[in-house]
C-alpha cells in the first residue's frame, strides 16, 4: 500500500468502488475483511480467556462450592489464603521451583547451544539425542522419573556404585523439591537450547571472522558479538522458561502428590486441590489471581531489565 506511488492504489480501488457492495467504500471493505478474519479468534479469547479471567477475579470475592449458589464474602477468600499456612508454603514452593528450574536453564541452554553449534562428526545425531526429551510426554516423564527415583531405582543404583547410600528422593523433605527441579531442567534446557541455536545461527559468520582478524580471542568474540546479538533470544527464553516452570502440575501430582509435608505443593497444585478436591472455588479463584499476578510480575520485571540492558 505504502509503496510511494499514490496514484496506483488510489486509481485502482476507484474502479472497484463503482459497484459498492453493501454500500461500503473499498478501503472500508478491506478494513471489515481484516476484522472479520480476526473475529473468530477474538470471540474464542473473549469466551475462554477474558471472560474466565474476569470471572475468576469476581469469583474470588465469593464463596462457592459448585452446588449451592455463590455467596458474597468480600475479601474473605484472600483473608483465608493470607491466614492459611499451606498457601504461604505453596507460594514459597512455587517461587523456589520456578527460579530453581529457570535460572539453571538459561545457562545450560546457552552452553548446550554453543556446544552443538560447533562443527563435529555426527552433529546431526548428537543434536537429535539432546532434543528427544522435548518430544517426551509429561506423564511419561513423570512415571519414568518416579521409577528412577525409587529407593531401589537407577539413581540410587548409580550412586551406590560410587559409595553413596540409599536416599528416598521423593519422600524426604530435603530432596523432593530438588528432585523435581532436576527433572524440569533436564526437560527444559534442551528445549531452550534449540531456540538459542537458531539465534546463534542467525549471527553472520563475517562478524566472527573480522573480529578474529583483529585478534579477538574466544571469550572476547563471545562477549562482544554473541551476547549482544542474542539479546532478543534471551528475552524470549527468560520469559518462556519462567512461565513454563510456573505452571508445573503433572510431576507434583503424579510423583509426590504435593508431599512430603507439602514441600512440593506448587501453586497450580494448590489451586487444583482447593477447587476440585475441597470444592472451595472462590478460594481457588483467589489463588489463581495471585498466581496470575506473579506471572505478570516476572514478565514485566524481565522486560524492564532487558530493555535497560539494550539501551
Amino acid at each position, binding site marked *: 500500500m505504502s509503496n510511494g506511488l499514490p496514484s496506483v492504489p488510489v486509481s485502482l480501488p476507484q474502479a472497484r468502488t463503482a459497484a459498492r457492495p453493501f454500500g461500503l467504500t473499498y478501503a472500508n471493505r478491506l478494513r471489515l475483511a481484516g*476484522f472479520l478474519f480476526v473475529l473468530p479468534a477474538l470471540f474464542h479469547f473473549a469466551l*475462554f480467556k477474558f471472560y474466565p479471567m474476569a470471572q475468576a477475579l469476581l469469583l474470588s470475592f465469593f464463596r462457592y462450592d459448585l452446588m449451592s449458589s455463590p455467596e458474597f464474602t468480600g475479601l474473605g477468600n484472600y483473608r483465608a489464603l493470607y491466614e492459611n499456612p499451606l498457601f504461604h508454603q505453596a507460594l514459597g514452593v512455587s517461587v523456589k521451583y520456578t527460579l530453581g528450574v529457570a535460572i539453571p536453564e538459561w545457562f545450560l541452554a546457552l552452553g548446550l547451544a554453543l556446544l552443538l553449534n560447533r562443527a563435529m562428526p555426527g552433529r546431526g545425531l548428537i543434536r537429535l539425542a539432546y532434543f528427544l526429551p522435548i518430544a517426551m510426554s509429561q506423564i511419561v516423564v513423570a512415571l519414568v522419573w518416579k521409577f528412577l527415583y525409587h529407593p531401589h531405582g537407577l539413581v540410587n543404583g548409580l550412586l551406590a556404585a560410587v559409595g553413596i547410600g540409599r536416599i528416598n528422593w521423593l519422600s524426604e523433605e530435603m530432596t523432593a523439591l530438588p528432585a523435581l527441579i532436576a527433572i524440569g531442567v533436564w526437560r527444559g534446557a534442551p528445549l531452550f537450547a534449540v531456540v538459542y541455536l*537458531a539465534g546463534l545461527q542467525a549471527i553472520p559468520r563475517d562478524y566472527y571472522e573480522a573480529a578474529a582478524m583483529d585478534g579477538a580471542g574466544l571469550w572476547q568474540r563471545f562477549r562482544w558479538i554473541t551476547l549482544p546479538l542474542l539479546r532478543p533470544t534471551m528475552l524470549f527464553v527468560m520469559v518462556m522458561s519462567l512461565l513454563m516452570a510456573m505452571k508445573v502440575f503433572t510431576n507434583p501430582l503424579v510423583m509426590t502428590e504435593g508431599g512430603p509435608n507439602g514441600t512440593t505443593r506448587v501453586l497450580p497444585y494448590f*489451586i487444583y486441590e482447593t477447587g476440585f478436591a475441597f470444592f472451595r472455588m472462590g478460594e481457588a479463584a483467589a489463588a489463581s489471581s495471585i498466581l496470575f499476578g506473579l506471572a505478570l510480575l516476572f514478565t514485566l520485571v524481565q522486560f524492564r531489565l532487558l530493555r535497560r540492558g539494550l539501551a
Partner: protein
Amino acid sequence: MNARTRGRVLGWVVTLLTVAGAAFVLLPYFWMISSSFKTQDAIFRLPLEWMPRAPRWQNYPAALGRFPFGTYFFNSTVMALAVMAGNLFFGSLAAYGLAKFRFPLRELCFRAMLSTLMLPLEILLVPTFLVVRQLGLLDSYGGLIIPLAVDAFGIFLMRQYITDLPDSLIEAARLDGCTEFGIYWRIVLPNCRPALAALAVLSFRENWDQFLWPLVIISKEALKTFPLGLAQFEGFHSASYHEMMAAAAVGMIPMILLFLLFQRAFVRGLTLTGLKE
C-alpha cells in the same frame, strides 16, 4: 605440542563431553525401555542389569490389557488432531487479518491476544471449568477440544511468517477478482506451508500430552485420554513398574515418530517465534 595439535585435542575432548552429555540425557529412556522387558524382581536388582537377560515381551500385552488403552489412545489422537486443526485454521486466519490488514484497534487486538500467553489453563482452571459446565460440555469431546482450539502462540507464530509474505502476491490476487477469503485460502495458506507444518507439529505434541484439562472435565471411561490412562495405571498398579514402563513406552511412540519425521518442522516452530522480537 604446537598450538594446532593442542586445538585439535581440545576439540576432541569437547566433542567427547558433548556425546557423554547426550548419553546422560538419553539414559532415562534407555532405562525405561530396558526395564519394560524385565521381570518385576530384575528391575530393582543390584548390580544394575543394563540389558534384560531374557526379554519379556509379555509385559506389553499384560500392561495394555489392564485398561482400555486402545480407547485412550484413540481419544488422545482425536483430541490432538481436532485441536491442531482449530489452531491451524483460526490461528492462520487471525494472523492473516492482523498481518496484512489495517483496521481500528488492530494493535490492541493483537496485544490482548498475545497477553493470553500469560493465562494458561493452569491459571484459569476454575473459571474455564465453570464456562465449560455452563455450556454443558463437561464429559464430552467438545469440552476437551473447544477451549483449546484457538491459541495465542499459534497466532503469534503465523503472524511472524505471514508478515514477511510479499504484499504484491495478495494485491495481484485481489486485482484478479479473488474474494478476500479466496485470497486467504488459495494464496496465503499455500504460501505458509512451512509455518503451518511447524505449528501442526508443536500443537499435536502439546495436546496429545494434555493432562490437567482432561483430568478436570472427564470422568467417563470412554472419553479418557492416554495420559489419564497412564496416571490411572500408576494409581492402581504402582508396584508393577516393569509393566508401567511398557505402557509408558507405548505412549511415547506417537511423540517419537512425530519428532523423527518432522524434526525440521519442530525446530523451525520453536525458532520462528524466538528469532524476531
